[in-house]
């Protein structure tokens, strides 16, 4: 393996924000003397991403994901730490560096609102100095893969969100970037568009070896795409590894959902399995009919049959479901409790 695509050591970003004083008196004082406060958005993170990897970057809102991405793209200047992407220091050699990366911000457009899609592409061709032949070849490939044929001559403002996002992806790839940064690329899209974007990204990664780093709140993106997950909380990396390992480490074992025939006294159910390291809980609000309970087995060695045997004696059972730990639950738990 050659040089890593992204190498980050002890990266830190601190913002200074003004802190207004309260009340009218405070506002008047603020006119002459503003109080500043520093907020650490990214706190000494280390990251090493080899070429050709698809890395998912997840965390709650405000965890520092976007700030990290913006430092990796050369938009923000880090407060301290070293950062090297594709052999460049992004904020120092910005103009040369961005020539070899592609960026999509799900919430902002990089296309020109008033122009037709193809006009935007042509302008980008000039901005990135792509030769006419390379451009045509690349464009044809992207149009084909992302089914953009009908969209090229439409003004950007008349595209639906899904159509626009496909165009944004194409726009970010016209200059054959080695690294692609995606900041919430599937935000607000329907399932069909999401899955077509996912398979497209997989193809790009496989065929061109494009390194992809994406932030998302949709864990299905992660499951479909990422060999590696980095989880961020309050500016610190709290998990870095494969998705399977995440499930294993934080999955908290299997759980069983039991629907009784009648309302059952919760205490009785709790008691029946005492000593078996099983935790009972009520299911989420929308499933709560008063008859359904869920039990999580913290110990892998406890047989499910043992639990059921004890519960069956209490009341008739209408339905049983054995639940595999799913990523969403795991991540929700981590967000809520921390590691």
């Amino acid at each position: 393996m050659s040089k890593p695509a992204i190498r980050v050591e002890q990266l830190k970003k601190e913002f200074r924000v003004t802190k207004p004083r309260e009340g009218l008196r405070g506002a008047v004082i603020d006119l002459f003397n503003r109080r500043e406060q520093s907020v650490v958005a990214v706190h000494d993170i280390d990251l090493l991403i080899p070429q050709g990897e698809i890395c998912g970057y997840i965390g709650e809102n405000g965890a520092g994901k976007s700030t990290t991405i913006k430092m990796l793209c050369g938009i923000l200047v880090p407060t301290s730490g070293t950062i090297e992407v594709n052999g460049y220091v992004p904020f120092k050699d910005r103009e040369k560096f961005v020539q070899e990366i592609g960026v999509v911000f799900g919430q902002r457009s990089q296309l020109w609102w008033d122009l037709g899609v193809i006009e935007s592409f042509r302008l980008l061709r000039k901005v990135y100095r792509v030769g006419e032949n390379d451009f045509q070849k690349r464009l044809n490939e992207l149009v084909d893969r992302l089914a953009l044929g009908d969209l090229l001559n439409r003004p950007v403002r008349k595209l639906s969100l899904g159509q626009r996002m496909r165009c944004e992806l194409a726009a970010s790839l016209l200059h054959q970037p080695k690294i692609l940064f995606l900041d919430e690329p599937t935000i607000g899209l329907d399932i069909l568009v999401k899955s077509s974007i996912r398979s497209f990204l997989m193809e790009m990664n496989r065929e061109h070896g494009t390194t992809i780093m994406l932030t998302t709140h949709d864990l299905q993106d992660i499951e479909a795409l990422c060999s590696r997950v980095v989880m961020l909380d309050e500016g610190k990396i709290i998990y870095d590894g494969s998705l399977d390992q995440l499930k294993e480490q934080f999955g908290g074992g299997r759980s069983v959902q039991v629907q009784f025939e009648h309302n059952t006294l919760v205490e009785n159910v709790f008691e029946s399995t005492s000593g078996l390291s099983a935790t009972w809980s009520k299911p989420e609000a929308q499933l709560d009919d008063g008859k359904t309970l869920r039990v999580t087995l913290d110990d892998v060695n406890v047989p499910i049959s043992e639990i059921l045997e004890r519960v069956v004696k209490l009341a008739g059972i209408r339905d049983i479901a054995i639940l595999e730990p799913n990523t969403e639950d795991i991540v929700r738990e981590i967000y809520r409790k921390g590691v």
Partner: protein
Amino acid sequence: MWGAYGELIRLRFLIMLTYRVNYYSGIVIYAINIGANYFLWKAIYGSNTQLADMTIAQMTTYLAIAWMARSFYFNNLDREMSTEIRDGSLAIQMVRPYNYLMVKMMQGFGEGLSRFVLFSVPGMIVASLLFPVQLTKDPLHWVFFLGMVFLSFLLNSMINLIAGLMTFYLEQIEGLLRLKRVIVDLFSGLLVPLSFFPGAAKSVLEWLPFQAITYLPASYLAGKTINVSAGHVFLVQLLWVTGLMVPLVWIWHSARQRLFVQGG
């Protein structure tokens, strides 16, 4: 690289063309501005034939030229920048392999060029039919004048860029921009030629960059004073372009350290 910048100029020019009503109203506004100024100054002159070494005809010519120059050098780059910084679309600009300040400059140039060709030239023709505007017929004067107006554009745009960059330091710069606009219009000699200012104010203004934006080029073309030579105008303008480059570049670099992107 210049291909991209050239494309940006062309695009802005095209966008200006797409709004037809703007076009016609632009010419009318231009003629009204000159007309209003003409009648105002006619009233000020009253029975005087000369004020501060200028005849009423010279004054009218000066004003017409000053407004023509303004239509080229004027732009809203400061406001555009402030919007881009505040709504976070600056992030997109920063991931492209070009210089943001240059991009803004080019957009301003495209806008100025279209306004000059579409508004000022026709507006000037309309104005010279209606009012006693006496334009020189010496082509060399016009060539020099165009060069001067280009430098006026650079100067004014640099001031605008510096003002726009203030968004990084002040959260809201609307007030600052209004102040800047009044200062540029007044101190550059667009509203009142510098020779009309009282002695002390005049000597202060001669040490500021604003006179090089309107007063010097317009005086040159209006042939109002003998001692304004083309060389002198170019020299002052070039000195200020170089002089403003220093704070502009410095502020841009320090602003990048402070850059924060709003809205996620």
